[in-house]
């Protein structure tokens, strides 16, 4: 500003003031960017002219780290992808490794995994509705949904000893069996939960401020959403009924029935609706799984080359002890060579693991297809031409977690 000469100023006054676009760097510490997302916004008044997302502030090199870890050892890394629904990531990773090895978990383990990944979906969506509503200005919903989330997290703690970084599933099954208390308490949760969803909807569903902040904002058509590679609720909000649980069923999903809710307009409100319906469907899935869960082993009994032997045997049998040592220090014995892509429907979208194996106990290359990264790339498309306040609504609606985005 200071280097404007007097002559230029006079010129300006004669021809009218020249205006420049304001460059605003939003984040990486902004509370409503849900982590360390940085958006560089070029503003013309209150309108966003250009929006550039910068990612990578939470880059930890997960893919590279996996390369020098055994398959079991890399499991805790998957906790830290989408750290609010780590159970779903665990299931995705374990499933990919199982498909690579050609082993299958027993039915009971499949049911347990389905239950926990749906619980993760619920806890993820509950956190999403809490923060999304908080960003837009509906502050009341926050503690309502955290109340239910606490119940779920307590159940996680009861099940595996940790609330967030669960590391619960194992290659070939799950770490430990569920308890009676877990089943009964979760069943009570499923009976109670639909009423709780109605409570959230009482608070925001018809609220005129909520409607004005969400309807017609961040519209993306079905065709465009597919072209951007969107998945999960963001894609379904535009009316595309794509769901990995239906298209390539894994675990116990083929044995339970549920619907895939879709939206119509592809705006923020529709995506909100889709997620609320999804919570109801998740609830249904959990209920069915609890009712149908059979008795049986929770670890694949016929895969001693990939699963750790039972501890009792390790302490009494030489062969199992040797197995334990080899499996832990060198990784799975006789892992097949080859590559595999395996995807699950994580709460945020399609979470894919592409593993290349060279026959050793460690993955040669592990590539992650994380929904948050793809969804972050669509932000400019959603924000440009709209008001600066809608940027917040758009970040909330695509529901990104930067741990997964930057990996």
């Amino acid at each position, binding site marked *: 500003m200071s280097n404007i000469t007097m002559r230029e100023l006079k010129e300006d006054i004669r021809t009218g003031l020249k205006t420049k676009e304001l460059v605003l760097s939003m984040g990486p510490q902004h509370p409503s960017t849900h982590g360390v997302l940085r958006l560089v916004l070029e503003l013309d008044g209150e309108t966003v002219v250009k929006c550039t997302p910068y990612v990578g502030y939470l880059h930890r090199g997960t893919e590279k780290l996996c390369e020098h870890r055994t398959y079991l050892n890399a499991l805790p890394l998957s906790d830290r992808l989408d750290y609010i629904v780590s159970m779903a990531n665990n299931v995705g990773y374990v499933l990919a490794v199982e498909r690579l090895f050609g082993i299958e978990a027993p039915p009971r383990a499949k049911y347990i995994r389905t239950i926990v990944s749906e619980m993760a979906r619920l806890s993820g969506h509950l956190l999403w509705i809490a923060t999304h509503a908080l960003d837009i200005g509906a502050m009341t919903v926050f503690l309502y949904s955290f109340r239910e989330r606490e119940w779920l997290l*307590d159940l996680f703690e*009861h099940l595996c000893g940790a609330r967030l970084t669960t590391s619960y599933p194992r290659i070939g*099954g799950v770490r430990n*069996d569920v308890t009676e208390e877990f089943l009964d308490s979760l069943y009570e949760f499923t009976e109670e939960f639909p009423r709780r969803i109605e409570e959230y909807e009482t608070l925001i569903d*018809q*609220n005129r401020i909520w409607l004005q902040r969400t309807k017609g904002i961040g519209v993306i058509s079905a065709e465009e959403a597919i072209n951007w590679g969107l998945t999960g609720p963001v894609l379904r909000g535009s009316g595309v009924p794509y769901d990995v649980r239906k298209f390539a069923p894994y675990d116990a999903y083929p044995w339970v029935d549920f619907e895939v809710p879709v939206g119509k307009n592809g705006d923020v409100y529709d995506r909100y609706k889709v997620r609320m319906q999804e919570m109801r469907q998740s609830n249904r899935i959990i209920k069915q799984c609890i009712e149908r869960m059979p008795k049986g082993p929770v670890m694949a009994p016929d895969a001693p080359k990939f699963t750790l032997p039972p501890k009792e045997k390790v302490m009494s049998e030489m062969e199992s002890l040797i197995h334990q040592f080899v499996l832990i220090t060198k990784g799975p014995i006789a892992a097949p060579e080859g590559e595999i892509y395996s995807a699950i429907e994580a709460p945020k979208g399609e979470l894919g693991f592409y593993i290349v194996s060279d026959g050793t106990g460690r993955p040669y290359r592990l590539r992650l297809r994380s929904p948050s990264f793809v969804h972050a790339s669509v932000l400019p498309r959603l924000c440009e031409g709209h008001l600066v306040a809608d940027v917040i609504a758009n970040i909330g609606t695509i529901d990104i977690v930067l741990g997964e985005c930057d990996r």
Partner: protein
Amino acid sequence: MRLKELIQKVLFIEILKGMALTLSRLFTRPVTRQYPEEKKQALPGFRGLHALARRPDGTARCVGCGLCAAICPSECIHVYTTEGPDHQKIVERYEIEVLRCVYCALCVEACPFQAIALTEHYEYANYSRDDFYMTKEKLLENWDKYMAGKKGEEYFKRFWHPLENDFREYEGQPIFDPERYKRRKGKIRDIRGEWLIYNGNGRRQ
């Protein structure tokens, strides 16, 4: 339909409904916890501070095989061994950098001698980094503090993994039983005897 919408809009029906729900919460128990005063007991099997198990004679169960160090994803366990007078292995130093630990409990799973455990203790904030560098003595002390007696035995019986039962079917496995659920509905307690259930009125006690 049009008229109904108009009436709803003029009379602020949806806002009033929301307000009614919010105000009704004034008369229920709070769901939040006054943390430093009101502490939460971690559930059994919680993955908290580390401890090294003792044998009945008071020595450490650890034999220094190093499997825990091999499986540790954050590489925070260091085991140093030497040779004793009768050519036996002696664990000279066993150290855990607690600040680097990710609490995945893979070391507990890997240990073939049930020598390492994660206790339920989770409040160990301190002023210097040295306090988080756990030596063998400190770890054994943790065992005495948080795991001594029955609790330690229970811990390994219930949470050593994988169990033999995980690989085969057996009779007493818990499945959902509508009868049992009906009996216990609303009063399901967890192992520590506290309610595992929340309702609209907050924590039941």
